[in-house]
């Protein structure tokens, strides 16, 4: 009986893992920046949010995604709401593609993801430079978009494995 309760609580924890990882990543900026590779950076939350929204994961609460965005803004030092809006726009885009797709194709999703993150990063860059007069390096955004796109496949494989374990 006790082991059953333990298993149940572990399963609960396991099913909330994506949100937990999202919060850890925004608080910790999980992006290997300390490796000091010039321009190297990628946006892990974008991959995670896009994938789990696309899969319509049951414990992936959009409100928590919104809160995670606020946390990210606080940690990075961006004006409040910028990351939240970006994350929600990713959710909208992913929900849209989920609704229009009959036969899912990972490669199509991958390139759609590239299109979405490029659009959102451009949107971010425009808001920050136009409304908040911040000086930003466009190259950083381009490289960040590129690496996020590259790492997408790798993380999707891991996430798929996670979901498979959960289904089992």
């Amino acid at each position, binding site marked *: 009986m006790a082991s059953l309760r333990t298993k149940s609580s572990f399963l609960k924890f396991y099913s909330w893992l994506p949100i937990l990882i999202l*919060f*850890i990543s925004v*608080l*910790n*900026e*999980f*992006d290997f*920046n*300390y490796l*000091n590779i*010039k*321009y*190297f*950076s990628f946006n892990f939350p974008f991959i995670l949010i896009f994938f789990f929204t696309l899969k*319509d994961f*049951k*414990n992936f*609460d*959009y*409100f928590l*995604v*919104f809160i995670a*965005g*606020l*946390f990210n803004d*606080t*940690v*990075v*030092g*961006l*004006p*409040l*709401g*910028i990351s*939240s*809006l970006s994350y*929600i*726009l990713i*959710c*909208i*885009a992913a*929900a*849209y593609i*989920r*609704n*229009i797709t009959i036969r899912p194709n990972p490669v199509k999703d991958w390139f759609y993801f590239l299109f979405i993150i490029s659009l959102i990063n451009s949107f971010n860059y425009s*808001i920050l430079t136009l*409304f*908040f007069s*911040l*000086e*930003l*390096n466009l190259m*950083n*955004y381009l*490289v*960040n978009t590129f690496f996020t796109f590259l790492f997408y496949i790798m993380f999707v494989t891991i996430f798929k494995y996670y979901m498979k374990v959960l289904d089992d």
Partner: protein
Amino acid sequence: MVSGRDDFIIAIRSAFLKKSTKQKFSLLTLAFISIFVISLSVLDFKIIRYTKVGINEIVYRSSFIVSIPENFIKNAFFQISDYTTFFNDYQKKKIELAELKSNYVSNEIIEYENIELKELINDYASSSNKLLAKIIVDHDSPFLKSIIINKGSKDNIKIGTNIYDRSYLVGRVIEVNYKTSRVLLLSDLNSNVPVTIAPQNIQAIVTGTGNEYGQIKYIKSGLAEDLMQDSIVYTSGTGAIFKSGIPIGKIQSFDQSVTNEYNVEFYSDFSQLKYVFAEIRNKTEITKTEKSDEDKSDQVKNPVNAKLEILENELKIIEETNQKFQEENENLKSKVYELNLKFTDMNDQILSQKRIIDQSNVDIDELKFLKLNLDHGHKCRKSFFNSRGFEVGSDEYKNCVLSKGGLDG
């Protein structure tokens, strides 16, 4: 075509408005809330500011706790890489230490001189209090280069407070919470620091590049040619944002032929910071301690009165000096008069002495004549037997006697 558009609208509506059983808000609501929050950030209301401070406090602490494992890995990585270059670094540091020791003495002298000069011009003395602060969040984001320190308004940190790594400038505070603050690093694209480049004494502005080096900008054309490799860059204090004379870095990657860009290698490695110093500055007027009178101290504070007082003092000193000169002059005059008197006396004495000497000379000639007269007077005297002789007492006779009886004179 119509059905395609309908599908599109349905998909859009579904994406925006449809809520799953687990979702509390639709995506459209959340998007609107995000836009609303951004608008509030732009407007910067007081209540929003306080809410933000509260969120910041919680998030920074949470971020610090969450970052512990990553920081552990990061530190381990740096320690390993440090060990590999340990010996070379040690040799380099040894030489640097020797140079620094010699510089330290001259710096101390300059510091004392500076304080003395400020006292002379009756300026304010800036007493600074350096507060040790721990870096609780340092994610080295590629977009914004900033760090979070564990000191805030509670510890008198203000917006603009200068932050140091040892004695090198690291950045300045741009956001203050109750117990935490955000520091904008010099490497950030939004960082601009007015600097002086030594030894050429060129004024310029160093801006961040988003990388680990800065860039010299806004330098007067023509002066850039004077820049050299390893020229020292320190704050000029222009604009009063940063204190003057704080070392920042040195000019590096100097390749004038390729480009007119001059990079500044920061002395401090921003990715390796663990603790920093926040400088709490207190400006205090320098007053003269001897003056106990309240009015006098007020006068000293007023720069015009202080200048007048200095001039009065100067005048007083000049008058005193004049008086002394006059007294000395009078003394000298009396001495001159006395000496003149003495001189006249001496002259009189000399004259009388001369007269005596002359008299004595006459006596000597007379004596000589008498002696010769005794011997040769008969040869010169006119007589019966000596018709060629002269009358006694005449000049010819005298001459004859003096020439020992020579009658030819």
